[in-house]
């Protein structure tokens, strides 16, 4: 058990110009916490994890595990276990040998290894497969062996690098829950990398969003969803994505076609202080609704309806200024509008509006 | 510097044994051999500890090169030997590649006895070459040889294969082709098996004929392995002396550059190390030129070396 901290850690790949894959990362993870690093590909999330594992140099700054500076410690001295995206099972060893390999290297007595492997195998429902080679296992079983290999070692930190991305959708959801439950039970500090924001939201105690090597925001899933720190986090978290449009400001609020969304005083003052005549206006699909007959709304032409059973997502275009912008609205699944129909859309609650600076992307509302 | 060592010492440690051995046993002799080309060293003036004789060879500048390139027959008829070497090399490598590819394509089909064919076809590679050469010398024997007896049986003329004529060159080429095809075949077969089957399926869906699939899927798929094979094949064949030497000895009709170097090296009491080394240096420079051109031509396919 240990807490983990990145202290202004950077990884710079040489080149012209040098690429700052991870740039000044400042992040601490509490003991027993499940932290998810999420971001699009090339965001530096895997590099950050590999720096912690000791597989990637730390060019600037430092990394500590359990308060101990491990910046220059080789992987084997860090007391970590890692689950790889490809699982990286040793193809020439059986499942049991794979799981016990690290213990064997540490000189743990054979009987003890066998006991620990058997226990982990029970936990992961692998007992029947202990004598098989990885080649003879299904994808899900391999994934569990990779987990087992990490568990058996009882490390102070688990590192997981997209461990579910090679599974099919159904198994992924199932395994997601299993991993979260397992982590809960073991109470081991876990850093988990994924590009899938649903995984991030459902698994992490806290989620750190990275982009271009820079930490955008690190917060609980709820906080991340409700109060994204900038337009990138707002667009990245949530599915379908938040509607984010640049709209003109009026003294009353933001103008979207025929709809003027009233904004709080503080937001308007903030925008005025920055001298903005436009803002990046963000609203989640579920915060939009179809307007009643007598309500003001923005006119949307329906282009696509995704029916999901309980809900339906309506995709359509709205004229904002000179341009036609696409919006996504969540509606009741039983009464969706038809294709090509024109509907009036309004905001469910003005408090659910997110405003961002159109230049910097930073959140304007407090 | 310390970080440099800290970062790379493992790589250097792992490569060190080879670097030391190659340095001491290849580069050092190579340098000395190149130095010999500028001297008149031979068996008579070399240092001989057994006879307590000191080296007495002298520096002669470019004399050896001038002699080799201009003196004709007494120095191995360099230019006509070079022409023969080119025929030998291109003929052997071309036949190796074509036959190897043909057999690999046949073997790459699912069929009965596939494993057996494979073992039989690779067998020539497993037998030490001097034994194979000895067998072939018998087969080509003009009186008792199976080849001529077969020709005789068909009522065809029965030439002297390994005699003083260009037939001898043809014969050694046949022998060398027999020896070299298995290696090519095995390597190309490996290459074929690594071409994803989906590519063939896609090509078939696109309506490609068998020939088009071969030209547009198989050949490009083999490109990287082929370019290495041909490069190594040319270098090895150019320098292959034991087949010719063991088959026809010093027959001028089968003389190529490297066998002449050996003739100078081993023949008679004089043992002209200087001229032998000069030939070696010329071979090295010819191959360097070839490799430079070859790599330039194949560069866009990705570097192998």
């Amino acid at each position: 058990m240990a807490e983990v901290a990145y202290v202004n850690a950077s990884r710079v790949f040489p080149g012209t110009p040098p690429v700052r894959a991870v740039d000044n990362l400042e992040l601490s993870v509490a003991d027993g916490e499940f932290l998810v690093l999420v971001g699009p590909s090339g965001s530096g999330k895997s590099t950050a994890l590999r720096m912690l594992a000791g597989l990637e140099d730390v060019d600037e700054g430092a990394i500590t595990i359990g308060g101990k500076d491990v910046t220059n410690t080789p992987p084997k001295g860090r007391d970590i276990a890692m689950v790889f995206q490809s699982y990286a099972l040793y193809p020439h060893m059986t499942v049991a040998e794979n799981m016990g390999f690290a213990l064997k290297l540490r000189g743990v007595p054979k009987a003890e290894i066998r006991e620990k492997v058997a226990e982990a195998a029970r936990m992961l429902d692998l007992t029947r497969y202990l004598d098989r080679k990885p080649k003879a296992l299904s994808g899900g079983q391999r994934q569990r062996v990779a987990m087992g290999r990490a568990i058996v070692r009882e490390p102070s930190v688990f590192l997981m690098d997209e461990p579910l991305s090679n599974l099919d959708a159904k198994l992924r959801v199932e395994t997601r829950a299993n991993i979260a439950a397992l982590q809960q039970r073991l109470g081991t500090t876990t850093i988990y990398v994924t590009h899938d924001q649903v995984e991030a939201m459902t698994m992490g105690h806290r989620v750190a969003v990275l982009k271009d090597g820079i930490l955008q925001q690190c917060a609980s899933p709820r906080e991340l969803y409700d109060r994204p720190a900038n337009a990138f986090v707002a667009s990245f978290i949530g599915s379908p994505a938040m509607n984010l449009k640049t709209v003109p400001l009026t003294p009353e609020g933001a103008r979207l076609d025929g709809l003027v969304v009233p904004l709080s005083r503080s937001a308007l003052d903030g925008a005025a202080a920055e001298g903005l005549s436009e803002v990046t206006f963000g609203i989640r699909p579920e915060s939009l609704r179809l307007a009643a007959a007598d309500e003001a709304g923005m006119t949307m032409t329906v282009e696509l309806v995704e029916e999901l059973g309980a809900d339906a997502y309506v995709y359509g275009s709205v004229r904002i200024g000179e341009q036609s912008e696409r919006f996504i609205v969540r509606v009741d699944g039983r009464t969706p509008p038809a294709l090509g129909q024109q509907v009036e859309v309004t905001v469910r609650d003005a408090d659910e509006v997110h405003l961002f600076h159109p230049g910097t992307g930073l959140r304007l509302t407090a | 510097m310390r970080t440099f060592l800290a970062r790379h010492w493992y790589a250097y440690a792992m490569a060190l044994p080879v670097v030391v051995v190659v340095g001491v046993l290849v580069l050092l002799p190579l340098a000395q051999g190149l130095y010999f080309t500028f001297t008149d060293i031979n068996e008579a003036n070399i240092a001989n500890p057994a006879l307590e004789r000191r080296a007495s060879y002298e520096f002669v500048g470019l004399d050896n090169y001038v002699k080799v390139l201009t003196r004709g027959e007494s120095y191995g008829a360099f230019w006509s030997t070079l022409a023969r070497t080119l025929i030998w090399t291109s003929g052997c490598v071309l036949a190796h590649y074509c036959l190897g590819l043909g057999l690999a394509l046949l073997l790459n089909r699912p069929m009965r006895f596939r494993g057996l064919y494979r073992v039989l076809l690779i067998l020539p590679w497993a037998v030490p070459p001097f034994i194979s050469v000895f067998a072939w010398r018998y087969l080509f024997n003009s009186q008792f040889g199976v080849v001529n007896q077969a020709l005789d049986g068909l009522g065809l003329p029965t030439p002297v294969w390994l005699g003083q004529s260009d037939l001898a060159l043809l014969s050694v080429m046949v022998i060398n082709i027999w020896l070299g095809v298995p290696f090519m075949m095995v390597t190309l077969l490996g290459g074929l098996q690594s071409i994803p089957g989906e590519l063939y399926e896609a090509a078939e869906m696109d309506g490609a004929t068998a020939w088009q699939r071969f030209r547009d899927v198989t050949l490009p798929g083999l490109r990287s392995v082929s370019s290495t094979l041909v490069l190594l094949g040319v270098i090895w064949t150019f320098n292959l002396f034991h087949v010719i030497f063991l088959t026809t000895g010093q027959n001028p009709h089968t003389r190529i550059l490297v066998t002449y170097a050996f003739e100078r090296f081993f023949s008679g009491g004089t043992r002209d190390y200087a001229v032998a080394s000069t030939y070696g240096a010329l071979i090295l420079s010819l191959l360097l030129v070839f490799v430079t051109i070859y790599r330039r031509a194949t560069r866009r396919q990705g570097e192998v070396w």
Partner: protein
Amino acid sequence: MSVDAAALRSARGETRAAPTAARRGQRSRLASIGLHGALVTASAVAVFPILWVLVTSFKPDTRAVSPTPRLLDESTVDNYVDVLSGARGDFLAWFGNSVTIAGLSTLVGVFVSATTGYAVSRFRFPGRRGLMLTFLVTQMFPFAVLIVPLHNILLALGLLGQPLGLVLVYCTTTVPFCTLMLREHFDAVPTDIDEAGRVDGLSPFGVFWRLVLPLARPGLAVTAFYSFLTAWGEVAFASAFLSVADDSKTLSVGLQVFVQQNRAEWGHLAAASVLVALPAVVVFYLVQRFLVGGLTGGAVKG
């Protein structure tokens, strides 16, 4: 789909469904006859000279060469008895020397090629390209012409006449090609495996020894085969660098007794040849299932 299984399959050179197997139906009878006909002919050509040596080895010298050869002609095992009993030289001593020298050359050659191949495959160190280019250049000079300088160096190192000296010389001739080949095999082992090993507590050498080497076994088999054959059949260096005493010769050198005399003793030579070829063929048989794919490894990823 996971990397480990796919990599293993390609590393093992396992015959996956051949590309041309994309043809679903049966091939026509004619095509089938053509295919087998071509392969039978090629196999016959490949095997015949070897078969002839085998047949001859059982014939008396006088019968071995005759204007009307017959397959079995007064066949005896006399030739083998003569050769093995040492009537023509200490065959068993030669055999032992060859086994020692070829075996050591294989071990040393494969081991140093493997470490170098691993360094080239996994580390981006300065001089890496230079090393590979040097290897290529070493293949270009008719190395045997260097017998004189090599002789001097071995003498200076005190290795002249020692089996170890010859072993080192053989290694220099095989190492460049073996390194290239093994490097390609190592490239085919996913680096994730290395990293998993390092996280599990292996040193870089441990990763090489316990994970990468076992996974590159087909490549090792092929390089071993190649090194063994090179050392086993070599004549020029062996006659130059080993002492002239009869019992320190290798087989290939010793066998020259049968050829160098004016009348070639075909029967005896054939019997001796069979005895020499036998270990090579055994080694061949042991590694033959690795040969296909083993030579190319991951080199041709497509």
